[in-house]
């Protein structure tokens, strides 16, 4: 789509574009190309000399059991965050779409967790579930459950998943509610007249019509679990215990900033960039399809 009426000027458009382009080049293209460049280099322990080593960093990474387990952890984590988050928010959205009285109040009370920073969400959950003083830990103890995420890897994973789902649920809820409200009432009414009950109407009409929204949210939630949860992990488990919650982006940070392995960390950055680009392509493909639909 192009404008029919345009203005003419030899320099003005460039002047208008300049700030955006300069910032994009300096803070995006330049660092990204540096990441790719570092990923082919090996630094000695003191950072004094660097050596071009080709793909060796990538080889080392892909044979490193820690890195592969970080991949596995990220996969489990994002499936849990996306799956639980989407299911719960769909349930809430369907219910909120159904009620007439108090709909706005419910909506207001459900959307605000979006405003909470990931790191703050992590701190809240760390506090509630703190092994010795946490209020939820105390309740769990009453049921005979010994809760200590500081030493139990599975419980640590559960903790970060809960905090992440809580933080992301309002985002999903808003999109599902918008999706539900755009479904034509006439379709639902026609089905009701034909004798389909609420459950049948949901599965044969509402759910298929919501599937584009659900798919979109799946991609967004996976991206969120990959990158947006950095603050949660850093504020709670810091990847531990024994790297059981060390997702990929946390490992990039840990290896690059804390362990000072520039080459290895950059190689990980490059792999992550490839993953994000792949996810973006998937999403845009889907958006194109939706436009035709």
């Amino acid at each position, binding site marked *: 789509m192009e*404008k029919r009426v*345009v*203005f003419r*000027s030899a320099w*003005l*458009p*460039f002047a*208008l574009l300049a*700030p955006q*382009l300069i*910032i*994009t080049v300096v*803070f995006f*293209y*330049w*660092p990204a190309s*540096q*990441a790719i460049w570092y990923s082919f280099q090996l630094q000695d322990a003191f950072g004094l000399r660097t050596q071009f080593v080709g793909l060796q960093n990538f080889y080392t990474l892909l044979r490193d059991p820690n890195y592969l387990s970080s991949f596995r952890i990220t996969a489990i984590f994002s499936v849990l965050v996306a799956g639980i988050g989407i299911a*719960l928010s769909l*349930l809430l959205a369907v219910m*909120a779409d*159904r*009620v007439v009285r108090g709909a706005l109040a419910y909506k*207001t*009370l*459900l*959307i605000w*967790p979006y*405003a909470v*920073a990931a*790191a*703050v969400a992590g*701190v*809240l959950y760390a506090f*509630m579930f703190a*092994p010795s*003083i946490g209020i939820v830990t*105390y*309740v769990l103890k009453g049921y005979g459950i010994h809760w200590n995420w500081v030493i139990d890897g599975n419980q640590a994973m559960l903790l970060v998943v809960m905090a992440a789902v*809580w933080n992301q649920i309002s985002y999903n809820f*808003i*999109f599902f509610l*918008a999706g539900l409200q755009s479904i034509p009432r006439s379709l639902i009414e026609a089905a*009701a*007249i034909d004798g389909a009950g609420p459950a049948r109407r949901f599965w044969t009409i509402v759910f298929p019509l919501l599937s584009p929204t659900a798919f979109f949210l799946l991609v967004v939630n996976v991206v969120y679990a990959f*990158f947006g949860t*950095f603050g949660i992990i850093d*504020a709670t488990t810091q990847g531990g215990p024994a790297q059981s919650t060390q997702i990929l*982006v946390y490992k*990039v*940070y840990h290896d*690059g900033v804390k362990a000072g392995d*520039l080459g290895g960390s*950059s190689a990980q*950055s490059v792999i*992550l960039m490839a993953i994000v680009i792949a*996810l*973006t392509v998937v*999403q845009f493909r889907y*958006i194109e399809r939706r436009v035709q639909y």
Partner: protein
Amino acid sequence: MVERRPGLDLLAHLTLIVGVVVIAFPVYVTFVASTLTLEQIMSVPMPLLPGDHLLENYSQVLFAGTEKGSKAPVATMLFNSAVMALGITFGKIAISIISSFAIVYFRFPLRMFFFWMIFVTLMLPVEVRIIPTFKVIADLHLLNSYAGLTLPLIASATATFLFRQFFMTIPDELAEAARIDGAGPMRFFRDVVMPLSKTTMAALFVIQFIYGWNQYLWPLLITTDESMYTVVIGIKRMIVGGDAANEWNLVMATAMLAMLPPALVVLLMQKWFVKGLVETEK
């Protein structure tokens, strides 16, 4: 007409009430903890009704900071967060509106190339290129500065796209009329495009303010000076060790203060928030 199902309506209300309570619970616990003394929190289980140390805790963190962790007063941190969030928000809106105006309303060489150049940055978050970006900032001597906190995060394609989409819906007749009346492009931009873009700007404001306020990894890397901490970083720096080592009442008071501004923006600008969220992601 869809049949009435009072049973289902009741179930809907129950589900929503349970959802609201479960979602609000962590913040309620935080609020309660921020009104207690440390001893009260440490005596397991902590009380679940607010105590009477609200003013004491809040004034201590705001003006004096914690004793064991970071000693920077939270008032400074809130100010830093506000500068960062507003800097990112207005910076993004400003550079995006003029660049999309150039792309939509002018024909010039390499137009589509520039467009794609911005487009590619759409989804690559700062998290994947942290170390090289950190080096760039260090080389530019922007560590521990507001410019270092905001500039790298201003580069984003979302706002540019939103404005571009919106400009495409402005009728050509308006530009035509402006040209016939002898208005140049900047006059047209100021008197026609800017006023029409108000709702888009409001929607972007909410989304980007929250984005800027809640930044974590980037300020964590480039602020080493306590006086430059943002509030989200400040909370993290207050947590120094195991359960017993932290002044939880103060940490929780800081957490409340960190949540308040973005939550208010969401609640007070709810309409723009939902619009911004749904449209930036389209």
